[in-house]
């Protein structure tokens, strides 16, 4: 028994809701998770998808803490419903035209400041986003001083949604020259938003501007292949994708 306990490494984490100062100093809600140790730990900002600040995204946030990162996932729909369920707040945000890009950048800058000020943080911070959060992770990496970024199947980095919709979603590929950090892109070959032609356009822009990046497109996978609670889940792509995420953040945040 003594020998057994000697070889079992202690693991522990803390996860809780917090409040941070977001865009224009507004107070917004966030989910925060960190390993139970003295650190110092690098940080990760998790950007939730359009269906909201939901249980699945909070689980992802805890996963980063379990892997040795202090992680924060701020509620992008907080203003639409600070005390509402995530789906109601997401619906209200969509009906109002979506999350404005400037507000998103302001809120994410607040999450970045929060992580960098922690006494047990290294100060290195990456960003990762899924679905609409993939586009926003790209946007954050272009407008904020980050150390690494991961875009998981974000649509409309290039291209514009059809006209006549209430959603205000502008292409952001023109910001690529300002990309502040190395970018990992994980996509599904069967996805149509973003399509393989669109991810090729992003690669072209990254190459033109001499930005370090790696893109991986998984055959047999479509959109949202990481989502374990959806029929789109593809374990082979997800397992490989998670490994690439650990390698990427390990390379750029842990050195």
């Amino acid at each position, binding site marked *: 028994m003594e020998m057994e306990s000697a070889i079992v490494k202690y693991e522990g984490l803390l996860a809780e809701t917090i409040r941070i100062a977001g865009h224009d100093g507004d107070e917004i809600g966030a989910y925060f998770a960190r390993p139970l140790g003295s650190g110092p730990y690098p940080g990760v900002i998790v950007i939730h998808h359009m*269906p909201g600040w939901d249980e699945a995204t909070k689980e992802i946030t805890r996963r980063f803490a379990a892997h040795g990162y202090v992680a924060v996932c701020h509620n992008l729909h907080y203003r639409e*419903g600070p005390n*509402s369920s995530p*789906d109601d707040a997401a619906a209200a945000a969509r009906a109002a035209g979506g999350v404005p890009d400037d507000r998103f950048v302001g809120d994410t800058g607040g999450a970045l400041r929060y992580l960098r000020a922690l006494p047990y943080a290294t100060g290195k911070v990456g960003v990762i986003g899924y679905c609409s959060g993939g586009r926003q992770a790209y946007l954050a990496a272009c407008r904020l001083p980050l150390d690494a970024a991961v875009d998981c199947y974000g*649509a*409309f980095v290039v291209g514009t949604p059809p006209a006549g*919709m*209430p959603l205000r979603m502008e292409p952001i590929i023109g910001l690529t020259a300002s990309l502040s950090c190395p970018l990992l892109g994980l996509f599904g070959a069967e996805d149509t*938003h973003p399509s393989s032609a669109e991810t090729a356009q992003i690669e072209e822009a990254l190459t033109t501007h001499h930005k370090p990046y790696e893109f991986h497109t998984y055959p047999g996978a479509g959109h949202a292949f990481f989502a374990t609670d959806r029929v789109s889940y593809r374990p082979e792509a997800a397992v490989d994708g998670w490994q690439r995420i650990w390698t990427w953040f390990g390379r750029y945040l842990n050195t």
Partner: protein
Amino acid sequence: MCSYATQKTAVAGSGKGPDGWFRLGSATVYFDHPYHAPYEHTLNIDFANEELGPGSRVAVELSAESARELVRCVEAALAAAGLPAHGDS
């Protein structure tokens, strides 16, 4: 696919949510990821009264086939009541 495809229209009528009946102001219609239904994408409708807050919402997430059948039934019900189809004089 993350379509962002969203249509919005004003509606007049009432809906029943967890706190009872309330007046509706808008319907947001989109074909995108559902929150609950076990499909990759669904036709989602949020009947809402934005003045009353995000919780004043009646939400449905329908398979594409169900949504088309619903449209047919709505048109059939209105036609059966003698109301002209949209666009007809």
